[in-house]
């Protein structure tokens, strides 16, 4: 037995040493120094570029996100982001049932538009039951009805040279208005819609009333809510901090959020 006991003691001593080493605070501080170094951040952002390039190569541009049946709906669709935009302006719109709400379509387009909800509802509609995936990890399934963004872009006549579509929102978080953007592949995707209904009822304010973007092959923060302007642009430079979205500018969320 004695030859068994010895290594056990040795093990305990060594395990104790490991725990002590793991608890060393300077080591942890060192990790954060590495995390914040500019060169490291540059390397880390390579992952996003690799994910974007490989997913764009792998996924057919018209490949659809899975569509579900009504039996699959989440009992309650958890809202993401802003629940109630602040300000008298939005409150007035809400009080009047968004009758005066306009979505301005501008930028690199042949025919700038200003669409009311009635205009949007008069266009051909698409209804889809899809899963919303938050960057945090949760998912909810909801039924969305609205107009394909592609139809709006067609109506406005997007000019050559437009590479991105920018979505301006009415909700302010902290110091700035929310905004998002996507490339032309996602903008033209058949499931990319401006939705005004959730689960067969008018879109609740917490979910982005009166209009929110559905961009089904990307994570939740890309699905801009309270949309009041759509811009076709050649470059994202000069918009916000130039990273293409509110959270992209502030906390370094990926602009391409397909994963």
């Amino acid at each position, binding site marked *: 037995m004695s*030859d*068994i006991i010895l*290594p*056990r003691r*040795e*093990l305990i001593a*060594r*395990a104790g040493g490991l725990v002590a080493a*793991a*608890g060393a*605070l300077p080591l*942890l*501080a060192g*990790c*954060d120094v590495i*995390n914040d170094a500019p060169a490291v*951040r540059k*390397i*880390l*952002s*390579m*992952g*996003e570029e*690799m*994910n974007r390039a490989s*997913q764009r190569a*792998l*996924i*057919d541009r018209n*490949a*659809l*996100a*899975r569509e*579900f049946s009504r039996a*699959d709906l*989440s*009992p*309650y669709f*958890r809202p993401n982001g802003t629940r109630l935009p602040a300000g008298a302006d939005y409150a007035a719109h809400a009080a009047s049932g968004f009758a005066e709400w306009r979505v301005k379509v501008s930028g690199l387009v042949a025919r700038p538009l200003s669409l009311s909800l009635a205009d949007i509802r008069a266009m051909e509609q698409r209804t889809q039951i899809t*899963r919303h*995936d*938050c*960057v*945090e*990890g*949760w*998912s*909810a*399934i909801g039924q969305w009805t609205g107009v394909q963004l592609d139809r709006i872009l067609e109506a406005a006549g997007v000019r050559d040279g437009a590479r991105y579509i920018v979505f301006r929102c009415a909700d302010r978080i902290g110091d700035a208005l929310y905004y998002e953007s996507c490339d032309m592949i996602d903008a033209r995707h058949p499931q990319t819609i401006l939705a005004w209904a959730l689960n067969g009822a008018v879109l609740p304010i917490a979910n982005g009333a009166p209009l929110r973007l559905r961009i*089904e*092959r*990307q*994570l939740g923060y890309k699905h801009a809510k309270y949309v009041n302007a759509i811009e076709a642009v050649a470059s994202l430079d000069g918009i916000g901090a130039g990273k293409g979205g509110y*959270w992209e500018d502030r*906390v*370094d*969320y*990926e602009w391409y959020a*397909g*994963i």
Partner: protein
Amino acid sequence: MAEAETPVAPEKPEPVRVYRHRLPVRIWHWINALTLLILLMSGLMIFNAHPRLYWGEYGANFDRAWLVIGSTADTGYLRVGNWRIDTTGVLGRWTDAQGATKTWAFPGWATIPTSYSLADGRRWHLLFAWLLSVGLALYMLWTLLGGHLRKDLHVRRAEWSPRHIWHDAKDHARLRFPKGEAAARYGILQKLSYIGVIFVALPLMIATGLTMSPGMNAAWPWLLDLFGGRQSARSIHFITAWALVAFFLVHIAMVLLAGPANEIRSMVTGWFRLPQERET
């Protein structure tokens, strides 16, 4: 006698050295060790953003979670199904290096970065996932083509006998390790655990990880069918991560018990000294 008093070092036999680990094994081992550590710690950060797990396609705060790490006013807890355990100080409620109380699920010493940043956790995780995937693919290829599977990992018919497996398990439990020539080869439990890690656990991590990607769901919708939905894939991802941690703990324990210097040297230089038979 005078001669006998002169101290003469007893003739110690030279240890027999064998070339045990080829270069690709060693390179992959150490790259993978670092990669898995970073993936685990950044993964725990991502988990902290929503410390709840579900089965099925959807799952959010209003849905029933099968696993929750949460906090009350003064405690932290882990709930699995209906079983709940107080984890104050470690999970759900803990004190950071500055003495501040935090209510994130996993404590700062276990996550990358140490303070809450989902964005940074994802950056680390999604970059090192590439290293894991490409490394594993190359290693699998080499394992199959380079003879590693056939020569070292292949489980021979005699080894499959329950008696043999039981015998090996008993030896491990008694910390009785093979000596001499036998020490240079993998035992049955070793083979099964390495095969399990390379061909089951790591591919499962990658596949369930991809199943959480809305982009990949559009490209390969069968992933959702394979794992029973995105939230199930997230749960399996989490469980498999801890299975890998369990493997790591046993692996480290075995290295320490079997002779850490020799084992680690062999994974650095490739050369392993055969442990000598004890005379007693």
